[in-house]
């Protein structure tokens, strides 16, 4: 009995738990430290390469020049970023609305799905670069044309994910709802919609990135026709003028936008799911 007596005064935390706690702490720091280190090292390498090899700035500008351009051209870059951002977010919002409404229509009516789903697929598989010039011809307003272009790219993952999600309800739960006499609307509201939520949010993450890509493509193709200059148009124009500092500054800003959108969508997804969904749970 003396064996069981030991260690009753202090709260017993075993070595394994301590090790795990320490490991977690290190991991948390490493998650930020390592990528930051990689960033610093690559910028340094970039700088050294450009200076030592004496690469001309119209081939590859050094990080210093890019930073300088970023500050100098900020009055020009910022409005461009606002335009691209607005285009992307509007396209994403419309993709969410369109995708969700269509998905609900498809799951409520087999006929609607059979009639229209193939065309949704065709719209998706046709490269948007090929459609964009046409849109420009038929739609006078260049912003609307660009918006439509970005929307086409972004809406499909929402549609297809939400459709699958709405069909993934537990069969027993469906039976239960039927036994309790649930109406169609009640089933949709209390069963199908919550079931579809994680699928929809997965689609949203993809759609966020695609909306930006759609916006960039649209600006490349349509933006040249003298519309408001977004980041992508700015980038293209800078390349014509061999203004490579500005080009890189615009490129970096586009990447930053992509990262911000991804982080935003991930946060939304986490907040919506962390209480109950497996994907958001921390494993012990």
């Amino acid at each position, binding site marked *: 009995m003396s064996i069981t007596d030991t260690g009753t005064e202090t709260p017993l935390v075993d070595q394994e738990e301590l090790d795990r706690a320490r490991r977690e702490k290190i991991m948390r720091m490493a998650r930020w430290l390592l990528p930051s280190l990689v960033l610093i090292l690559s910028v340094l390498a970039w700088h050294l390469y450009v200076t030592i090899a004496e690469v001309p700035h119209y081939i590859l500008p050094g990080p210093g020049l890019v930073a300088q351009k970023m500050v100098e051209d900020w009055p020009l870059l910022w409005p461009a970023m606002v335009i691209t951002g607005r285009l992307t977010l509007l396209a994403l919002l419309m993709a969410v609305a369109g995708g969700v409404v269509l998905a609900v229509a498809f799951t409520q009516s087999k006929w609607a799905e059979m009639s229209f789903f193939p065309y949704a697929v065709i719209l998706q598989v046709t490269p948007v670069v090929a459609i964009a010039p046409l849109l420009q011809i038929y739609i006078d307003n260049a912003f609307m044309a660009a918006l439509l272009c970005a929307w086409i790219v972004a809406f499909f993952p929402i549609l297809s994910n939400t459709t699958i999600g709405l069909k993934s309800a537990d069969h027993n739960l469906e039976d239960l709802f039927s*036994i309790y006499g649930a109406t169609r609307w009640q089933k949709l509201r*209390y069963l199908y919609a919550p079931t579809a*939520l994680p699928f929809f949010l997965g689609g949203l993450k993809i759609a966020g990135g695609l909306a930006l890509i759609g916006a960039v493509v649209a600006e490349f193709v349509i933006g040249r026709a003298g519309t408001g200059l977004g980041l992508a148009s700015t980038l293209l124009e800078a390349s014509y003028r061999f203004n490579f500092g500005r080009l890189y500054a615009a490129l970096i800003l586009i990447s930053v936008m992509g990262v911000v959108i991804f982080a935003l969508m991930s946060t939304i997804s986490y907040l919506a799911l962390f209480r*109950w*969904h497996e994907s958001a*749970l921390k494993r012990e």
Partner: protein
Amino acid sequence: MSLSRPPLGERSTLLQMNHVEKTFRGNIVALKDMNLTVNEGDFISLLGPSGCGKSTALRIISGLMQPTAGQIRWTGGQSKDDLGVVFQEPTLMPWARVVDNVWLPFRLRGISYNEVKDEVLQALKLVGLEKFQRAFPRELSGGMKMRVAIARAMVTKPRLILMDEPFAALDEITRHKLNQDLLALREAIGCTVIFVTHSVFESVFLSDRIVVMAARPGRVIRQLEVDAAYPRTEEFRTSAEYAAHCREASDALHQAIGEAA
């Protein structure tokens, strides 16, 4: 608040299955000429080998499936408030807290939570989970989830509760505990139960009537009465009476398996 039940022979009829048949595509006869009288207060077990149509019978009683022939007659007609169901899986909504899962049957009738708060909490208390009302299903063990499912089935005080192998996926200790709790609950709310099981022991412990079914085609081959008094405790499991009933039910089950082969 225990309700006394009249003895087996003197109960009023709740529903009757008359010559019920079910044939699936490909001429699979899942049920052939099934006749069953369910009385108020009965605890009936459907016992039989896999594929003998136990689940099909429950689905037909619940109205989820129409019989190919024959009919179900409820005394005094049936309304959708008459039923509670428990499946083999707990079948909880993972996105909803325990209270909201139990509230569901009311919610689907358009009754707000505040109106039925007392009933919901009372049901959770009866299954011993009042402390977990704010938990999500993933935070509960398998046995606890099943308790929530049982609370949901009885919260509306339905006339009949259908249970399709509710404890088959649980370990033996948990299953025994739930068997007992189920009997206690039945005493407390006085409902009628049809309970599907593969287990001879479980059927004898729980029910006052065992309906033994055979497969291909699915049909009732025998009905046994277990006249041991309730409440039945763990001691009942070791009694000679229990052993005798188990032997009888086991023989009937073997006969059912033999007839199918």
